[in-house]
């Protein structure tokens, strides 16, 4: 009972001002659609969005889309992230690799990733491999850059400590470089997660085949089903937010030693 009370107190102390605007917008939306103040084909009512979402969920169509989107998202993220970690470490550790590869990497990086879509579609078709390659590119850049910069900004002082204790190269990498670069590497991974989700939506727009959240948004638009499109927007936001949240939980867990403002 007392636990409930303290929880209630904690709830009372929370800042609810942030809820005013979204609740107000939803109310306005509800009122506009209820009194037919706007073209109903353009503005679906909250109820219609709810109905559409409920329909998609109960028919199993939503689960199918979600599973497809999330699994290709993760697939691309893992492929691109791993490649990025490897290349980033190589560039960070080896001067030769840095001189040879970094300038080209930085030039290629400035090509907007979506510009690769037409080429990917010619070279790899419209199917799953093409999508995963595209998502992997999106995850590859931030992990490479952040791993590289993380390793580059390792304190010389710390490296000198390792030299005093006569660490081997592997020990130096494992015990000094990796841990001290880890905050930035994790930032890279977080960015990679965000960008791979963006790329997943993009891949489903451009390489139209199979199931996916964005595929059904496009379908919804073509059939002028506003409810379906809005439901899709919400899902895109919610999935993105969940992925982010998980990434930050992971960071907190892994980097408890770091004073965040230091």
């Amino acid at each position, binding site marked *: 009972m007392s636990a409930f009370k303290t929880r209630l107190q904690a709830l009372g102390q929370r800042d609810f001002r942030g809820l005013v605007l979204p609740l107000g917008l939803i109310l306005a939306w509800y009122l506009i659609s209820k009194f037919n103040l706007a073209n109903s084909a353009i503005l679906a009512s909250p109820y219609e969005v709810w109905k559409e979402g409920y329909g998609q969920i109960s028919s199993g169509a939503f689960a199918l889309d979600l599973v497809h989107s999330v699994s290709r998202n993760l697939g691309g993220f893992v492929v691109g992230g791993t490649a990025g970690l490897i290349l980033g470490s190589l560039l960070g550790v080896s001067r030769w690799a840095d001189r040879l590869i970094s300038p080209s990497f930085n030039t290629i990086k400035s090509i907007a990733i979506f510009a690769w879509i037409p080429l990917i579609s010619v070279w790899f078709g419209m199917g799953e491999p093409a999508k995963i390659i595209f998502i992997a590119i999106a995850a590859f850049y931030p992990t490479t850059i952040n791993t590289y910069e993380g390793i580059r900004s390792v304190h010389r002082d710390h490296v000198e400590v390792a030299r005093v204790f006569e660490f081997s190269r592997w020990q130096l990498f494992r015990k000094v470089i990796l841990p001290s670069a880890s905050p930035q590497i994790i930032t890279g991974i*977080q960015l990679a997660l965000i960008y791979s989700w963006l790329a997943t939506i993009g891949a489903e727009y451009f390489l139209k085949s199979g199931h996916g959240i964005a595929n059904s948004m496009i379908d919804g638009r073509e059939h002028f089903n506003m409810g379906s499109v809005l439901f899709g927007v919400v899902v895109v936001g919610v999935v993105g937010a969940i992925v982010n949240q998980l990434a930050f939980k992971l960071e907190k867990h892994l980097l408890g030693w770091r004073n965040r403002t230091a």
Partner: protein
Amino acid sequence: MSALGTLDFKNVKKQYHVKGETLDVLDGINLHIKPGEFVSIVGSSGCGKSTLLRLAIGLDDDYQGDILLDGARIKGTSLKRGIVFQEHRLFPWLTVEQNVGLALENSTLSSNERAKTIAEHLELVGLKGFEKAYPYQLSGGMSQRVAIARGLVNRPEILLLDEPFGALDALTRANLQNELQRIWQTEGITMILVTHDVEEAVLLGDRVVIMEPRPGRIKRTVEVDVPHPRQRADLRLAAIKDDVLSEFGHEHDTALQPAAEGFGFKDYLFAW
């Protein structure tokens, strides 16, 4: 020199309220500082000596008791009271002379007079020729010289120094201590120096106020009856230093540092 610059602490008490608990930081502080006097305040960390300066400069008004400047209770900050912080706090986007000029933003001087007094004060602290330099080009000692010039430029009645040389190396520190002694004699204003360096306190102060922690109180006041300018090697100073040092027991820090709270912007990543 003018007779202005009397500072009185009367029964000053300061408490912090952290998570429902009350913490006494200062209790029963009584101190009378005469015009033109140089008072050093020493104490181990956590004895409230820096808090005392924050109250005197007016950055913190939440205390009991009275702090009076020339008989009037101080309220908020005022151009009559100058301060030099431990970190130089120069604005990195301004040049040396612009940084000193910050103190004159609200003065009634004309722009010609301003330029003149800025130049004079930069000369006073030995930085002539560095007017157009940016803080990133300055060493720690030079930055602190600029900060002293900024503290003095609007001619306050009293200058508060909060461990101004704490972050400097020993040679630079010794050099600046001599400088400060010279500047104080030239300007003839009241100065209060907070420090944890007993030698510095004795070398510069007419009086050394020794504080003790939990809650912050004045333990003892030691007169330093040696005429200025003083020599570091003076044996009389050494004896007083030993006397002051004998007041410090063996205290150890027992608490861990609490993690600083930041605005969690690092948590905010987004795609386009």
